[in-house]
């Protein structure tokens, strides 16, 4: 197969236009009375065909065979090509209008200095002609010393310029006079197909409309020139022609009103077809559509492996894998064909070595089976274990596209393991995902080696696991491994068999820690603080009374509870260590097994949250109230001081700002104190606190909101000042600076908040929504720019980081050649490094 080596960009010359063109387009009429395109019109069948059943009058091809042919229009008077306006201006300024000589320092141009940076000579060095100043009068008229230049004059000027001069100015893709159009290439009909509406009317493409306009005005101009009409009529028509040609090329030029459709919609002409997100480049050339893909809603399945994806049978019957028949697999494939296209492990197509492709239907499967021989290609249904590519948009990082093994299942959704939600950022409130089936052995091998889920557990962003357990798995692991959890032999066996762990159970009872240890591979040694760590002043380590110091010896969980710091994404030390020391598939197996163990134990123990969890006892309540009152008094005093003018102002700040700062600090103290009180007094078995401490979900702050107080609502980091002049709501006096009138919510969610507090709360909520909706756009664009700027940078064959043109960006990638995607949080070995 031949490969494109390079693409050369050039301007099109009138000669080439003539060569390309199969006919001059001369009439502005499009269809005749018989609804057949008129010869010499823009829809002439010589230019290609779009209606089925017709044949191209130029090449005789049918629809699909003939790609269309160009025509041309001959202008009565030349017009400027608006797209080349900057170039035209450049040449006008830097060449002599009398002899076409260069008006700038030749040697400097030869050194590669851009002409724009050079001085323009006022007299021609060759012929001595005085040069006028060139001005551009919008949209497309050039003026030299108050004398407007016609395209004819410009063209004559450009014809005098030598190739060498043009080259020096930077016009290397053709002759300067080609910027002024005498001929217009008419694109084939196939590039601007008309659509037949239901009513039978034809609706023409925007380009066709524009071409008709151009031909009509060109015709009128020609007629008027012939009869020798007065100059002003000619000039008007010429200008009109220029307008139509201009908008034909680009309909979004700021100084020109855009050409509009009858309905008022502006026309989509050549530039608009290429430009921006829905243009040819970004929509069709870089974004390509594919076959062998499926999209449906995703739902969770805790019973499948991290590497698997549950594929509905319906999808599996539609998506196929081409398999070449060999001696070894012929019987297998025969079984597929025997099943036909409608029963699951079936086949849809068979291609013979001579290239003939047959659809397998129940009627012909016998005959296909008979002639099936090695060398045929069978497109069989997707079956368990086939490698597929799974993706959720927006694809923000490379873990948004990963390879999974298919697992065919009933029902109509894709099923995925819960640990893989993090990298995809998926939840199950109606999210949809895409699945692609690979068609070549090369692609399958690459996907399996590089893109398989287990090989992406470690994120290249920070060198830690991006997959792991969250939410119920964490609180479940805590429940399982905390002191006092025991199971009988029978229960243990049930739990382990569900997790596919085969073990010789010798004891009568097993503790949760022991059960958990079954999943940890031998040879893992770890020692670290759990998330439940209370940050005591001196860490007692092994003797921790909260059981928050985790010790794992040779794969045995000796001490400590399992929580976020052990098995969650980002933080999970155990996942991290297994992946590093025992390999990707062991890490995957560990995740598969513990998730199953945890789901089983959760089924036995249960975990829930109720309103009782938010109740605070009387003393706690009064303590909180006291703390609030005390702080509010402090603030009141500050406000009084401010009113008396006694406030301490740091230089560069106004007294108002200083007061605000002080109030904010005091208010922040309220929330902080409440949190501390609740943190200290809350019951250890409180579900909310378990979730917060283990890191499963929520935080102490959330609990404080519910049972303590909501606290200060802020907008843009300040208290709330919006609303009426001098006050937030009409319930307050003007100039009131008290916390209550500026968004302080004293109540808790459990107690209920009053209407005014609710109003402030909602203001804050709205800010959050605004923020996130604006932010996604801004950061999306930042990502596009970053990727565009850096996408070509790669590690070269010589281990230097280079961009596409070969420029060295870094001599050693990352300065130490350590790939963060394989590193221990960016280090060779974090433990050794942090010790020293």
């Amino acid at each position, binding site marked *: 197969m031949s490969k494109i080596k390079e693409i050369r960009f050039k301007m099109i010359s009138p000669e080439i236009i003539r060569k390309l063109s199969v006919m001059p387009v001369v009439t502005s009429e499009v269809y005749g009375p018989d609804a057949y395109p008129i010869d010499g019109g823009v829809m002439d069948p010589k230019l290609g065909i779009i209606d089925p059943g017709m044949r191209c009058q130029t090449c005789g091809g049918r629809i699909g065979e003939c790609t269309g042919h160009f025509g041309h229009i001959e202008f009565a008077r030349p017009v400027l090509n608006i797209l080349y306006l900057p170039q035209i201006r450049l040449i006008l300024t830097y060449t002599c209008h009398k002899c076409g000589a260069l008006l700038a320092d030749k040697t400097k141009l030869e050194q590669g200095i851009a002409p724009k940076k050079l001085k323009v000579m006022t007299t021609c060095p060759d012929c001595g002609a005085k040069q006028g100043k060139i001005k551009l009068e919008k949209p497309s008229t050039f003026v030299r010393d108050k004398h407007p230049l016609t395209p004819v004059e410009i063209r004559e000027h450009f014809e005098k310029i030598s190739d060498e001069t043009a080259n020096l100015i*930077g016009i290397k893709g053709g002759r300067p006079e080609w910027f002024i159009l005498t001929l217009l290439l008419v694109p084939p009909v196939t590039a601007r197909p008309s659509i037949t509406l239901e009513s039978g009317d034809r609706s023409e493409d925007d380009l066709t409309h524009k071409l008709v306009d151009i031909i009509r005005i060109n015709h009128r101009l020609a007629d008027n020139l012939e009869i020798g009409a007065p100059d002003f009529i000619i000039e008007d028509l010429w200008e009109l022609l220029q307008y139509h040609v201009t908008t034909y090329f680009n309909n979004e030029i700021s100084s020109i009103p855009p050409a509009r459709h009858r309905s008022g919609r502006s026309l989509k002409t050549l530039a608009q077809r290429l430009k921006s997100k829905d243009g040819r480049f970004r929509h069709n050339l870089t974004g390509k559509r594919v076959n062998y893909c499926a999209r449906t809603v995703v739902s969770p399945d805790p019973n499948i492996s991290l590497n698997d994806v549950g594929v509905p049978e319906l999808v599996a019957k539609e998506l196929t894998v081409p398999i070449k028949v060999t001696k070894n697999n012929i019987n297998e494939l025969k079984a597929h064909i025997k099943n036909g296209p409608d029963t699951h492990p079936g086949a849809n197509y068979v291609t013979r070595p001579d290239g003939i492709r047959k659809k397998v239907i129940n009627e012909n499967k016998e005959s296909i089976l008979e002639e099936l021989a090695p060398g045929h290609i069978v497109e069989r249904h997707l079956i368990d274990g086939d490698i597929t590519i799974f993706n959720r948009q927006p694809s923000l990082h490379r873990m948004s596209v990963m390879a999974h093994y298919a697992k065919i299942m009933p029902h109509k959704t894709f099923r995925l393991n819960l640990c893989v939600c993090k990298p995809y950022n998926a939840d199950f409130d109606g999210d949809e995902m895409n699945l692609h089936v690979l068609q070549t052995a090369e692609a399958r091998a690459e996907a399996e080696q590089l893109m398989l889920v287990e090989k992406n557990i470690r994120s*290249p962003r920070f060198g830690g696991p991006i997959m792991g357990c969250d939410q119920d798995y964490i609180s479940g692991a805590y429940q399982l491994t905390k002191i006092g959890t025991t199971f009988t032999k029978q229960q243990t066996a049930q739990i382990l068999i569900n997790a596919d762990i085969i073990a010789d159970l010798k004891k009568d009872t097993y503790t949760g820690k022991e059960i958990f240890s079954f999943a940890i591979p031998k040879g893992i040694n770890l020692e670290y603080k759990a998330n439940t760590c209370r940050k005591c002043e001196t860490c007692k380590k092994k003797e921790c009374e909260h059981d928050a110091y985790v010790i794992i010896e040779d794969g045995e969980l000796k001490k400590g509870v399992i929580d976020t710091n052990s098995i969650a994404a980002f933080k999970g030390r155990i996942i991290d260590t297994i992946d590093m020391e025992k390999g990707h598939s062991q890490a995957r197996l560990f995740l598969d097994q513990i998730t199953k163990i945890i789901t089983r134990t959760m089924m036995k123990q249960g975990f829930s949250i109720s309103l009782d969890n938010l109740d605070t006892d009387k003393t706690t309540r009064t303590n909180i109230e006291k703390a609030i009152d005390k702080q509010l008094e402090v603030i009141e005093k500050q406000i009084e001081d401010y009113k008396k003018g006694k406030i301490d102002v740091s230089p560069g700040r106004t007294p108002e700002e200083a007061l605000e700062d002080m109030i904010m600090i005091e208010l922040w103290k309220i929330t902080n104190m409440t949190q501390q009180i609740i943190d200290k007094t809350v019951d250890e078995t409180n579900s909310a606190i378990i979730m917060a401490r283990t890191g499963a979900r929520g935080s102490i702050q959330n609990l404080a909101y519910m049972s303590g107080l909501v606290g200060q609502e802020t907008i843009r980091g300040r208290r709330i000042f919006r609303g009426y002049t001098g006050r937030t709501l009409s319930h307050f006096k003007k100039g009131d600076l008290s916390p209550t009138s500026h968004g302080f919510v004293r109540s808790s969610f459990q107690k209920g908040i009053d209407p005014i507090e609710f109003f402030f709360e909602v203001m804050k909520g709205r800010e959050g929504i605004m923020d996130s909706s604006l932010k996604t756009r801004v950061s999306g664009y930042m990502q596009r720019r970053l990727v565009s700027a850096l*996408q070509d940078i*790669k*590690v070269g064959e010589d*281990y230097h980081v280079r961009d596409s043109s070969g420029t060295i960006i870094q001599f050693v990638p990352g300065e130490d050649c350590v790939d963060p995607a394989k590193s221990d949080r960016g280090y060779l070995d974090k433990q050794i490094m942090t010790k020293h």
Partner: protein
Amino acid sequence: MTEQLPGPYEKIDLKKKDKDMLKKRYKQIKYEVGEAVGVIAAQSISEPATQTTLRAYHSEGRTQLVTTKGLPRLIELFDARKIPKTPTMEIYLDKEHNNKEDARKIAAKIKETKLKHILKEDSIDLINLRIELVPDSTLLQNLDITTESIITLIKKSIKHINISCENEVIMIEIAQDKKPDFTISDLQSIRVRARNLFTKGIKGIEQAIVECENNQWIIKTLGSNLKRVLKMPGIDASRITSNNIFEVAKVLGIEAARNAIIKETITTMREQGVDTDVRHLLLVADAMTNDGTIQAIGRYGLAGQKSSVLSRANFEETVKHLTNAASGGEIDPLESVIENIIIGNIAPIGTGMIKLKVKD
């Protein structure tokens, strides 16, 4: 590649066993040829930017200097804006001056003082048609300014006036030769000009506060002027930082600017609790400063200056790039990613760099 471990590991004293283990691991975790480090760096920076809340403001425990943070700051850095929204400096002091009094003194010296900052009162006397300025004597003493120096300053900067001084009050009158054709509004405009006269300190430093971190006195400023501050006595010039990368490039050179970009980006991200490997930011900074100047990430910077026409046309300003390519007779060598996707080839990156023959 050499058998050596990365620098920091060579320096530390390790047991033979550990060293061998590290060497073995180092071999395994090296970058591989063809790795698309650029894309990974870009994704590692922007993915957390979209996912987590990169807040621009945060309420708790804030200092008096409010600076741009979070996503807006990141974009500002990648855009390579000439002047950041909130330029700041951190000035460290040398050993002799590392105490509160000296820090305060230096801070006061650095801070830009305009005439209006040291005036107790200023007014227009409508009867005598003159401007009366009353300087704050305590402030004058603190800043080491005399009334005379103010007078000479005004004399030097504003023309056609007469200045006199009585009992600490500076009076400005219109000069005799200009008297016939002047109005009150002229007087008013002179007053405004006089008020904004630069009297003391370093231009551009709006605020200077003194803080103590780990027994180190630091002056944090709003506004940045490295060139002038570096000449101040008492400061530790080796540790001074500015967040204005263009200024850093101008004063200290491109290598310093590269370090400034890395420092600014990584602290912005760490501040928001985003854990990103430095190597990604190293790459971005290296790419931005590769040609000796600071280039932005965007249309007028890196993305707009690539050699490939199709790649540029695909990014932004499609038509402009295509027409320029045609008139300039440019050649697209199809060396990078996007062009190869456009024409349907395998892009020469990662496994696409290696050709594999499949045996039929």
